[in-house]
């Protein structure tokens, strides 16, 4: 992705207080200091850790309701996440291409490390449901006589479509989409990665959409566009 020309100074300047040139100079200064030797580098690392810790605490506080962690435990988690983010940033310094501000690039590592740690903590004592018995949100249409006829048809087709998936696709789809198990938690339990699991989810969804389309049920896909993030 080439950032040049994507966001010209006229559009960027309105909400970037220091301006495009200043942002680039700031990023360059970070890189220079972090690539220096001796005291300059040490001081830059201390500043970088403080920056990452601010982001980690921000994320931990946003998610604090998802865990039962108290203030000290939550802060310990944030410090640990900032430490992990610092290592990740330093290891990947050469991959920073200047498309964004250096600080935004660095923050994303702290957000990621904290978010993953919080999801793991929230699910550490919970069983991850994989079995199809957890299709409670998609009950047998026959059990819901008051439902609209179209809903009944769609739900029945979805259930048949899920049944037609491979066992692995079915497990992943049900865990992530029905039981809303966080993808990182499921990846840990299955010994895989977020990316690999999402690929499985993507393939399962595509098969399911194809199954519905083959039965002339394209309408649910239209409904999907109403979803908000």
């Amino acid at each position, binding site marked *: 992705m080439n950032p040049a020309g994507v966001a010209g100074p006229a559009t960027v300047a309105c909400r970037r207080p220091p301006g495009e040139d200043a942002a680039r100079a700031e990023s360059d200064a970070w890189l220079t200091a972090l690539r220096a030797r001796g005291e300059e580098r040490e001081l830059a690392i201390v500043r970088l850790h403080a920056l990452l810790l601010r982001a980690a605490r921000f994320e931990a506080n946003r998610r604090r309701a998802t865990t039962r962690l108290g203030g000290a435990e939550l802060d310990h988690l944030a410090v640990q996440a900032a430490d992990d983010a610092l290592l990740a940033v330093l290891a990947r310094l050469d991959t920073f291409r200047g498309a964004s*501000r250096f600080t935004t690039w660095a923050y*994303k590592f702290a957000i990621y490390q904290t978010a993953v740690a919080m999801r793991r903590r929230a699910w550490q004592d919970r069983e991850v449901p994989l079995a199809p018995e957890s299709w409670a949100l998609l009950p047998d249409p026959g059990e819901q006589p008051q439902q609209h006829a179209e809903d009944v048809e769609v739900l029945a087709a979805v259930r048949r479509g899920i049944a037609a998936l491979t066992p692995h696709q079915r497990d992943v789809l049900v865990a992530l989409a029905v039981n809303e198990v966080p993808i990182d938690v499921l990846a840990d339990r299955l010994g895989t990665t977020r990316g690999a699991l999402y690929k499985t989810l993507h393939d399962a969804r595509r098969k399911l959409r194809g199954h519905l389309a083959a039965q002339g049920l394209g309408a649910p896909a239209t409904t999907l566009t109403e979803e908000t993030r």
Partner: protein
Amino acid sequence: MKDPRRAAALRRLLGPAEPEVTCEVCFEELDFYVDLEIAGADADGSVPGMAAHLRGCPACSEEHASLTALVTELTRSYLPE
């Protein structure tokens, strides 16, 4: 689909129909995408498939929302009164 809970489950099951980036690409592009969004630039046009992925992947979507909120808050704090 009348039942909102069931409609939401169906949306999660079917996911976005549009082409989407992977989780790895999403992470690589996230800072660029967020900076463009905050600047009011064409983030979706600059990173095709990102918006669809954020609709389909709750984890990446949460991290996008957090990074946006953080950078927005810090950007505001730089603005003069």
